[in-house]
């Protein structure tokens, strides 16, 4: 009799824990899924790959059983999704094509075609950057992560992040001018 009661109690506890975990997971997904998608997209440049990386991240978190132990879920999840995205990008080199859902910020329809062409060239230049420069630059462009958070994510000092972002910009400028000079 007491064993049956223990079983019922254990089942109730397990159900309660599962419900709490699911509620916590839902909360984290609602809060951070967009940011994680942007991080993954900044690395992978492919929407479906980025979505897969985000799903994999939340699955890892769910299976790790550390849902309730996270002190800084944002940094933790950002680090995990970045790792997943880097692993995916190294295993599958994405094409140089621009993704379909990139929004153009061109001011007028007349110059849209020209701007798109120039942005495409810029994107190809960004993609040609070495990863150690490209990742800090792309992550800083998201606007949702401070340089401290990026430094924590990449496990690097904050000064190194700042320097790499600056170096990335300089290299892009050089490449851009070289390409323009070559065309001229």
């Amino acid at each position, binding site marked *: 009799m007491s064993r049956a009661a223990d079983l019922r109690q254990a089942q109730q506890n397990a159900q309660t824990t599962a419900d709490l975990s699911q509620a916590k997971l839902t909360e984290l997904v609602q809060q951070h899924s967009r940011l994680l998608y942007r991080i993954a997209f900044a690395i992978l440049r492919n929407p479906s790959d980025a979505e897969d990386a985000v799903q994999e991240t939340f699955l890892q978190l769910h299976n790790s059983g550390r849902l309730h132990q996270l002190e800084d879920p944002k940094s933790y999840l950002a680090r995990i999704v970045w790792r997943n995205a880097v692993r995916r990008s190294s295993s599958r080199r994405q094409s140089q094509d621009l993704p379909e859902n990139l929004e153009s*910020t061109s001011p007028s329809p007349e110059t849209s075609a020209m701007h798109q062409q120039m942005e495409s060239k810029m994107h190809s230049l960004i993609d040609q950057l070495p990863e150690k420069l490209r990742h800090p630059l792309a992550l800083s462009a*998201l606007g949702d992560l401070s340089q401290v958070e990026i430094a924590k994510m990449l496990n690097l000092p904050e000064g190194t992040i700042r320097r790499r972002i600056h170096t990335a910009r300089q290299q892009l400028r050089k490449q851009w001018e070289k390409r323009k000079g070559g065309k001229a």
Partner: protein
Amino acid sequence: MNHEHEDFDSLLENSLQTYANAEPRPGLQERILARTVAQQPALSPHRRATPNLWGWLAAGACAALVAVAVYPHFNRAIRISARRQPSSISSPPLTSPAPMASVIPALTPAPTQKPPSHRPAPPRAKALPTQPTSQEKLLAEFLSTHQKEALLLASAQAHEQASLDQPVAPKPIASTPIEIRPIQISSIPGRPIVIDPIQKDSTQVDR
């Protein structure tokens, strides 16, 4: 030059802005949650109880194995300890005077040596009573009052025991020779047996 710098900066900012403006397809959150729920193991009382049950079963099996492995050693140790018990411990304490002590073992029934059994021996404290029994008290009283009779009884018992202990010499068996008489066959009185010849029945032949 400055115009070119501004152009480059704005172009780079616009390009990088695409990362910040990237939006997932609608329903990403639902897809994530559905995938986690799909991969979550089903919670049922049987599933939850199974590890505990198996744990208890494994513990019981281990305990049984240990008991089976230990039992022969334990049994042998009991036998050895039973063999090592000195015989003086098993005899009751004596309250009689010292000269008569040698007589008492002959008058008291000899302790029977039990064959070693599989059961553990009872505690020794119970085997050695601290107080003499009523028979022992009577015996001690008899010894103290009738020493001569006791000595006679003891000597008679010892003599009888000695005669019993002596090996019995084989006595020759008085045997008379066996006489076998010849068999006498006498004729049986009476009429001699006549065997008639077999006669055929004609009716049976016709059939």
